[in-house]
């Protein structure tokens, strides 16, 4: 099982991305996405933004499970309250609550990062501590 995780800012430009494998079932966290998916993952995730934008005003929820799919790969999305988007592409068919928990915690991290006075909204997130915290969360939940 592998995941591609991206944060898309309010103007639809990506600000953070991470490819990571599962740690469950004796996985070691290395992603095993096939090469052609690896090359396309950013397009697939961005392609789901249209569907997300249609769905977001029709529903009051902020988590959209399996909102889009691409040859067996599922895209799930989580909207932050400021209209940032957290997107996950995975080859896992039926993921449980843990993905949602993961995104909720990422949202919290994202907000903390916004509170840094030196960070401008929609700038790419380069902070190494943010990255390592995301990886820790991935280890716990994915």
């Amino acid at each position, binding site marked *: 099982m592998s995941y591609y995780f991206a944060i898309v800012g309010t103007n639809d430009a990506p600000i953070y991305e991470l490819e990571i494998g599962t740690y469950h079932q004796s996985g070691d966290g290395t992603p095993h996405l096939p090469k052609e998916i690896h090359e396309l993952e950013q397009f697939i995730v961005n392609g789901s933004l249209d569907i997300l934008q249609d769905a977001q005003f029709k529903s009051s929820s902020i988590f959209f499970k399996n909102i889009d799919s691409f040859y067996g790969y599922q895209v799930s999305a989580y909207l932050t309250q400021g209209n940032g988007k957290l997107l996950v592409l995975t080859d896992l068919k039926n993921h449980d609550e843990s993905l949602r928990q993961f995104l909720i915690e990422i949202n919290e991290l994202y907000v903390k990062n916004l509170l840094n006075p*030196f960070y401008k909204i929609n700038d790419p997130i380069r902070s190494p501590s943010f990255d390592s915290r995301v990886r820790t969360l991935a280890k716990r939940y994915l």
Partner: protein
Amino acid sequence: MSRQLKQIGDDIWKSKAEKVNSELFTLTYGSVVAQLCKDFNYDYDEVNKELFNMGLNIGVRLIDEFLQKTQLSRCANLRDTAEVVSKIGFKIFLNITPTVAHWTADYKSFGLILAENPLADFVELPDDGKANKELWYSNILCGVLKGCFEMVQLDCDVSFVEDTLRGDETTEIRVKLIKVLKDEIPAGEE
């Protein structure tokens, strides 16, 4: 003595100090620093100086409020002063109590170690390669201390020597007494 001071600090914090939401405070200070960095074109030496001067202006006023609230009398020596600064000064204005440490042998210089720094919550210095060598993010505190000391006839050097934001182990402000100023009659008066 020091126990008593702690008590005074706690009492004033509880009863007399005006409080403000800490996130509002932190973010306000943060945007001031970020704006200064922008205005000075990321010349961090200038930013440090500007923060210090802002602090100085605060300090020369703040000392009056401090004395009015605490009704303290004169400190006998610098050791007392250090205790008062840490246990009452920092306590009533920031609700922290820095540890006084690293005295020099002649008792003219000491360090204030800040275990937590309410100014620096959420902050990560910009990763432009020089911010974590040049910028003293909380330099306003040095200015405040300098201003306060100056108004009570203590000519001091106050500066940061370590900051956890830069990746150091601790956050330490160094205070060095240069001399005790004499009460003088202003020029032109008898």
